[in-house]
Each structure stands twice: as C-alpha cells, then as structure tokens.
C-alpha cells in the first residue's frame, strides 16, 4: 500500500519507478501483480484519437470602441459568442461557413492553427449598445495576442468504443472513417492497452481534479464527460462498449501541435485529434492488476454502421489484439482493419508523460472527488413530433411486373397507369428488380424482348419501418426518383417516389401555416 504523497516524495527525490501501460502488462505477466505493485510507482497511459466533442474558450480582449460580439467567425468558422462581450467557444466540429471549403476546414483546424502560432482572421458582428457601441470588427489574432485560450473538451477519452463495419452495398462516410461496402473493412478507435480509462476501469485513482497530459501540456480532469456511462456489460473488468468519458481542460498557449491536430473525416466533417495521457498511481495490488490489462483481454463489439439507427446490430465480438493484427475474420472472410487513433502517438504521449514524471516536473494529484461509477445511463432523445414512416404514406395499390413478362405488356402497364417505375417480382411477389420507362426504350432500341434482360437487378429499397426522412436522403444520395417498399421477406408492398415525399412536405407546411401553403 502506497499513498500519492509517498509517490510524490519519490518523484521529487528522482527515484520513482514509472512505466507505460503496455510495459506494465508484461511486467505483471512476468513478476505478478503483488511484486509489481511494490516496485512500480506510476503507470502512464496515453491516447491520440479523433475526439469530436472538443473545443476552446477564447477571450479576445476589448477593442476601442468596445464591441459585444454576437456573431463571431475565426477563419470563416463560427464560434459561439452568446457569453459576455468578447468570449467565444469554438467547437472542433463546426465547419467553415464558406461552402467552397465546407467540411475541409473547421473549428479543429482553427485550434491547430492557433497552437501553431498562425494568424487567424477574426470577424465579429454585434447589435450595438450604449456600453458596447461598435457593430463590427475585422481583425486578426494570434494565440499570444489574446487573453485566454482554454481548451475545454466536454467528452474525451472514451472508455472503449464500438468497432465499425458496413453491411450495405454502398460506401459509407462516417465519424468512424470510410466504411467500404459489403463488410469491406473494419475501423476501430480505442488505443486498447494504453487507453487511460481502460487502465482504471472502476475509477479508483482517476477523478475530478486529476492532473493529466493534454495536448503536450499540463491539463486537468474537470469531471465525468458528457454521455458518461457506468452500467454497461464488463469483461475482465472493462466495459465492452463505449462507457466512461472525461471532461478535460488545458491551456492552449502551452500546447504542442504534435499532440493536437485538426482533421476531417471524409464527407463527415471536421474533428480534433487530441493527445491525452493520465498517470495512474500504483497504490496497491488491485490498481496494479487493472493497469496490467492486455489487448487480448479488452473485448469490444463490431457494429454494423449500415443501419442508420441509434441501436445498430452487433456483427461479432473481438479484442484489440486481433484488431491490431490488421485483419479479422467475418463469416469466413478476411477483412482488413484500420485503427483511427494513432497507436504510435498514443505511445508517444505515454512516454512523454513518463519522462515528465521521471524528471520530477510532474507531480501526481489526489482527486477532489471520484468520478461517478454507478447509475449513469445514457438517455435517448425522444422525438416528440412523430416521424412519418414509410408505411404511413403508401396508399395506391402497387402495380408490378413479372420477371417473365414481355416488354410490350410492361410498356402498356407503364402508360396505362401513368407511372415511370415498375418493381419486377417473381411468382411469390418477391422483389427481383426494377424497370423504368427509360429501360424499356433502351431495351427496344437494342432489340431486347424480355424483361429479364433489361431490368436493374440491384435495387435500392425502402422498408416499411423506416422514416420518410431517411428515404428522402437515400433518394437524393443515389440520384433516383423512386424505390420499392419491401417487407422482411422481400415481398413488394408498394412504391415510394420523390413526388410522394414532396406532397407530404407540402401537406405538413399547410398544417403548420394554418392551411396556407408557403
């Protein structure tokens, strides 16, 4: 049994024994936890991953004449300035307001540029008051010139996280990176054995006020982060899904761009790569055992991001040892894996923190209070205005073509019913393809006579229990005008078209405007 005070005395004397979390795994495997607890004083952890819930409070100082900023832009990225007159919070994921730049530059990039010492353009508008008469300011700032730049990240250092895969036929662009169709790749984001909250899974040493490594400088844990969860299933003591989180703060003026990077997940948006490391004082054997966790013992779940719902299906379980081999087997097929956090930089964080402590530059802290370890459940957001589901709008009896049918008959069906698409079904009513009036014209021009030869077999479909908003996005993304609605057995139940959705929006607007459409 050791106390933090005793460990700090050793650090001051220059004889504290500090190891990184991955080193600790092999030390405990060799010597046992009891001996390791006696010999090792501090284990350093580290992570360097895309942490979207990050940002910074900036205070620009007062201009002459003064201004009370209400709309504030830094290099074209909006910062929220609804607090006092010259304070703003710049969020990492806020994209540039310039549509030509869009997702390629955002709050995260502004943060990196400031830390690099670059000049950043500041434009702010105001409504003007007696004490703050100025209505617009256009200037440039640097990190040195402004009063404060305090990074405050509401949710960092997730304790484990889901692993992503995509079962659909199209490439998906997500916060988990680019996901190739048909289980084409797997992405994961936790640093595994080095990850801070995985090494102290019950928050025995990490708490409010703990001094940490943040972005290459000293930082602190403010509290649990947002969406902090404590009740998820655990294996080997560690939650198997996204659980505990931390709210962190640090002084941007002391940070190093090696450990804070602006990035853009393709077609998803800006995010901030944050390097964070937490020292764990080895107070006893229990703490030593927890820090010895290996990649193999950290279990996580591969989730299908092809299902755009809050609750996504689990494809299988895995662990970080398997993920780090670069490939994983799904249904007998080898699928390549990608880490999204940099293990190399995670290790750099843990090593640098270790060096700070060894040099006596960094003392450990007693938490002011422990992090909540019980009763935290992430609540969903219920949508009070009910979503319109696909099954709510299908109305007309569906007209279908049969796969053996002759083109002439199909053409007649299209003309008689004044429609452009026909789902093609087999004798059981199961979807086989789709045919449009263009396909018919094209088929006739090329001398084809059977429907089989000219229908499109790869059909983009809608399901009855999907919301119309999701279908509208699918129509837009695939540049199509209508899709068949099918049930679980793939039996065609109807058609939904862009016109159906336009009509629905028109009706909603009428309702909201007391019968007047706008």
């Amino acid at each position, binding site marked *: 049994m050791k106390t933090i005070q005793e460990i700090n005395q050793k650090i001051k004397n220059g004889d504290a024994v500090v190891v990184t979390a991955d080193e600790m795994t092999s030390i405990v495997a060799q010597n046992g936890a009891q001996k390791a607890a006696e010999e090792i004083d501090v284990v350093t952890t580290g992570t360097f991953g895309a942490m979207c819930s990050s940002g910074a409070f900036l205070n620009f100082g007062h201009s002459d004449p003064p201004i009370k900023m209400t709309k504030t832009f830094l290099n074209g990225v909006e910062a929220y300035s609804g607090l006092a007159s010259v304070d703003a919070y710049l969020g990492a994921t806020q994209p540039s307001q310039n549509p030509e730049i869009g997702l390629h530059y955002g709050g995260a990039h502004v943060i990196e540029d400031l830390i690099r010492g670059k000049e950043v353009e500041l434009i702010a508008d105001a409504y003007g008051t007696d004490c703050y008469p100025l209505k617009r300011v256009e200037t440039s700032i640097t990190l040195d010139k402004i009063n404060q730049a305090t990074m405050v990240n509401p949710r960092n250092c997730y304790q484990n996280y889901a692993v992503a895969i995509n079962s659909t036929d199209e490439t998906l662009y997500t916060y988990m990176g680019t996901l190739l169709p048909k289980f084409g790749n797997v992405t994961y984001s936790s640093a595994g054995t080095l990850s801070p909250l995985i090494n102290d899974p019950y928050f025995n040493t990490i708490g409010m006020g703990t001094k940490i490594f943040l972005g290459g400088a000293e930082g602190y844990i403010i509290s649990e982060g947002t969406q902090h969860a404590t009740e998820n299933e655990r294996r080997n003591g560690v939650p198997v899904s996204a659980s505990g989180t931390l709210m962190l703060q640090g002084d941007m003026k002391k940070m190093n761009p090696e450990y804070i*990077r602006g990035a*853009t997940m*393709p077609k998803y948006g800006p995010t901030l*790569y944050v390097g964070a490391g937490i020292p764990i004082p080895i107070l006893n054997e229990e703490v030593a055992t927890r820090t010895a966790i290996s990649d193999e013992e950290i279990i996580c779940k591969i989730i299908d991001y092809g299902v755009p719902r809050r609750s996504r299906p689990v494809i299988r379980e895995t662990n970080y040892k398997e993920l780090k081999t670069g490939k994983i087997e799904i249904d007998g097929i080898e699928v390549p894996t990608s880490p999204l956090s*940099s293990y190399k930089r995670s290790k750099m964080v843990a090593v640098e923190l270790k060096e700070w402590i060894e040099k006596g530059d960094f003392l450990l802290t007693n938490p002011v209070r422990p992090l909540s370890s019980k009763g935290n459940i992430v609540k969903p957001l219920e949508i009070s205005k009910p979503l319109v589901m696909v099954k709510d709008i299908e109305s007309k009896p569906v007209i279908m073509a049969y796969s053996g049918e002759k083109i002439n008959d199909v053409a007649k069906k299209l003309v008689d019913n004044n429609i452009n698409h026909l789902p093609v079904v087999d004798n059981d009513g199961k979807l086989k393809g789709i045919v449009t009036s263009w396909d018919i014209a094209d088929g006739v021009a090329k001398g084809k006579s059977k429907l089989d030869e000219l229908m499109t077999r790869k059909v983009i479909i809608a399901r009855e229990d999907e919301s119309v908003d999701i279908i509208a996005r699918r129509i837009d993304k695939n540049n199509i005008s209508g899709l068949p609605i099918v049930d679980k057995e793939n039996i065609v139940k109807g058609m939904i078209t862009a016109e159906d959705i336009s009509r629905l929006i028109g009706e909603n607007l009428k309702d909201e405007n007391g019968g007047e459409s706008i």
Partner: protein
Amino acid sequence: MKAWLKFLPTIVNKAIMSDAIKIYDIDFNILRAHINPRGGKMLVEISGPQENECIQYMEEQGIEVIPIMRVVQKDSEKCVDCGACVSLCPVKAICIQDDWGVEIDNQNCIGCGFCVNSCPTKAISLME
C-alpha cells in the same frame, strides 16, 4: 517498373502499345490514362524479361517514357499515423510498421487514390 507514357497528337492513333506487348511479351498494366486526339499521358506498370527493350521501342516510336519511383507521396509532417488508410488500400500497399508508423509501399501502389481521399489530415497526394 512504373512510368508515365506521354503521347504527342501525332502518335495517338498508332497501335504502338499493342505492338510493344506483342513483340516483347511484357506484362502491361494501365493504372491511369488521360488520352484524347490532342495527345495525353498514361501511368503504366511494365514488367517482363524484355522490359528495357520494350521501353527503348516505345521511345523510338515517339512515346516519352518517364519512369517514376513514387505513385503517391505521404507528407510525414501532416501524417499522424492514425492508420485510417490502411484498410482502404485495395492492394495492401499500406501497412503499419513494427513501430506503429504507417508506411506506403510504392512498389505495390496502383495509384487508385482511395487513401488520398480518405486521409483525415490530407497527408497523402497523388504524384503527377
């Protein structure tokens, strides 16, 4: 070897490549091509025992052959070794080294550009 082949307008309608393949029995893989009646260029991979003779022949026929060492370039200042690109490479030309750094093997790279578009820090670019 990988090389850019540059075609002048005067030779775009000649079947030089098919002749070269027939005469020298080489493996010939087109990675990228932009050729129209005003000329153009194509990025190819050529291999076989008579590779050098084949290149000499193409040059005699008026094709400018510019061998390249790199198909893509990774800026090590921008790269944070996150590995997002690794699983997207269709030819396994990107891998994570023993020190957890990300390396691109230009020998295997076919220049598809998938990694270029997927890189969160825009650290990879196609060589022109």
